[in-house]
């Protein structure tokens, strides 16, 4: 996935009307906005052109399906059944007959057109406010045909942003650990897929145990833990080139890596002599700094988005709790004081919240609290779940869940799930194998 593949030519038609439709995403949305995603219209010549290259009968419909699926899974929108649409896609894109769309109770309408131009895919789309009978947005892109799925994701992001006032999270990828085999001998591989589960690809072969991959927020680099040669160490992987290198080659186990928000440092734990402390490594000059110095276990560090603070997990009080400190390790404050154990703190990309895993009375919870520890809110309870990772807009958390085995030790599974910050819209994310340790990328475009 290189930069050159997305040649975006933003043209276009200025938006002259203020949005009348507003989707409030701060509350649980029990009444998702009804909208119509009219299939992108396509002329016969273009259709044939794309059919030849992409092996898709109608690329216009395929792109619309991506948009429809994204908007539906966000939980904020309710895409209406296409069978009820009265207007043909090409005419709707020219001038929608708003009464028709009003009749089927669509409040917003997405239309568009696909062309095959100079071996390129040209897509234009429009977002219409049905009640106000106005165009809200119009954009066009030109890109290589293979990028058609991403075009669908970018349209989804634009629509989401226009209707909610916040950036979307659809043109993103998820890196995770694929799991296979019996529970006592799991084979684990790094795998990557688009946010909607498409384009799944394995990045390692499963010869060695790999854990906890995390995206660099500033590039397509990943840091993870590998047991290569039975030496658990933090590694760096360039997804584009496949180059791997060890970065945490200390005399002991390095683990729990994450990037700093600018992507220039890795923060991780280094375990030696029964103590785990937090260290950073500057990726450019390889200078290592020790951030915590305590006989306890200090792990799962995560930077605030401005890079000034670090939240981490420590058992210095006797049990696993969540702490916040300045980025130089000073001013350490415990922030979790509820009942139970707290782990895996992750700072929201918006800066205001820390997501965590909580263990209380034999149940695992994914929750959020403010960065001073106030306002704790548990989003979901289960037999086992952990490792939340934020969508780049800070509205959705992805995590993994494991099932309890029966008395014979059978029935184990590990799956990815996502839930809105509101506590609504809990969904399983389908993966070809069992899966754990998800990490959400930044937006690939814009």
């Amino acid at each position, binding site marked *: 996935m290189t930069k050159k593949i997305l040649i975006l030519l933003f043209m276009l038609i200025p938006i002259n009307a203020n949005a009348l439709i507003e989707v409030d995403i701060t509350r649980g949305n029990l009444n998702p906005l009804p909208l119509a995603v009219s299939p992108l219209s396509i002329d016969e010549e273009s259709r044939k052109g794309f059919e030849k290259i992409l092996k898709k009968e109608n690329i216009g419909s395929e792109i619309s399906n991506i948009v429809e699926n994204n908007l539906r899974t966000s939980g904020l929108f309710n895409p209406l059944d296409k069978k009820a649409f009265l207007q043909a896609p090409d005419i709707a894109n020219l001038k929608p007959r708003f009464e028709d769309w009003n009749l089927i109770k669509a409040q917003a309408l997405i239309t568009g057109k696909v062309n095959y131009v100079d071996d390129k895919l040209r897509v234009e789309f429009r977002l219409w406010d049905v009640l106000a009978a106005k165009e809200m947005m119009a954009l066009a892109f030109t890109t290589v045909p293979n990028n058609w799925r991403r075009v669908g994701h970018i349209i989804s992001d634009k629509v989401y942003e226009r209707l909610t006032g916040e950036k979307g999270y659809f043109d993103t990828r998820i890196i995770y650990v694929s799991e296979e085999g019996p529970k006592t001998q799991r084979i684990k591989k790094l795998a990557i897929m688009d946010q909607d589960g498409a384009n799944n690809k394995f990045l390692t072969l499963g010869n060695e145990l790999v854990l906890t991959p995390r995206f660099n927020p500033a590039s397509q680099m990943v840091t993870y833990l590998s047991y290569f040669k039975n030496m*658990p160490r933090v590694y760096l992987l360039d997804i584009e080139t496949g180059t791997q290198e060890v970065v945490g080659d200390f005399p002991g186990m390095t683990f729990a890596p994450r990037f700093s928000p600018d992507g220039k440092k890795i923060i991780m734990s280094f*375990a030696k002599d029964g103590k785990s402390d937090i260290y950073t490594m500057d990726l450019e000059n390889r200078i290592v700094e020790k951030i915590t110095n305590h006989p306890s276990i200090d792990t*799962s560090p995560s930077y605030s988005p401005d890079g000034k603070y670090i939240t981490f997990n420590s058992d210095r009080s006797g*049990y696993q709790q969540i702490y916040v400190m300045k980025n130089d390790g000073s001013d350490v404050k415990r922030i979790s004081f509820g009942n139970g154990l707290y782990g*895996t703190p992750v700072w929201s990309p918006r800066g205001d919240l820390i997501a965590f895993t909580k263990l209380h009375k034999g149940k695992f919870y994914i929750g959020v609290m403010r960065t001073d520890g106030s306002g704790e809110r548990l989003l979901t309870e289960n037999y086992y779940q952990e490792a939340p990772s934020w969508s780049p807009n800070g509205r959705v958390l992805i995590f993994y869940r494991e099932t*309890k*085995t029966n008395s014979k030790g059978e029935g184990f599974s590990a799956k990815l799930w996502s839930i809105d910050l509101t506590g609504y819209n809990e969904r399983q994310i389908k993966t070809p194998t069992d899966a754990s340790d998800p990490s959400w990328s930044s937006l690939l475009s814009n």
Partner: protein
Amino acid sequence: MRLNKIFKNTLLVLAACLVLSACATKKEVATDIQGQMQGDVYTGTDTVEYLADGVPDRVFFATNESILTTASRETLRAQAAWLRKNPNINVVLEGHADERGTREYNLALGERRANAAKDYLMTYGISSDRITVLSYGKERPVDSGSNPLAWSKNRRSVTVKAN
């Protein structure tokens, strides 16, 4: 009469519960009665292998703990004696946690458990040069069950010959 018998049995179970501080469920009591756990530390021999005659290869831990029990110290003294007798053998101490904890914390906990065993071997004269510590966290359970007995078998440090 029959009622009386049931009543007596109930009393017995209750008494057992009172004796065992870590009594959470009847099932747990049952496993305790079988003599495989003390508190929540595994005391059975199901999964134990032997480095040599009378030298068990592993020690077990309580939940979230890395403290060596009396039995564990005995096992490690036997391992130290065996290592002294076999000066050419080096070992890897593999530390493990159960599945009821977050992955990263468990990696650290496994390391801490293996180091507890290492420290003890060292106080019995084994050079740290001969010992490598390797934590698997919760990645390599021996028992795939989701119950307290299975978890107790999985909270362990295993001494493995490295050469």
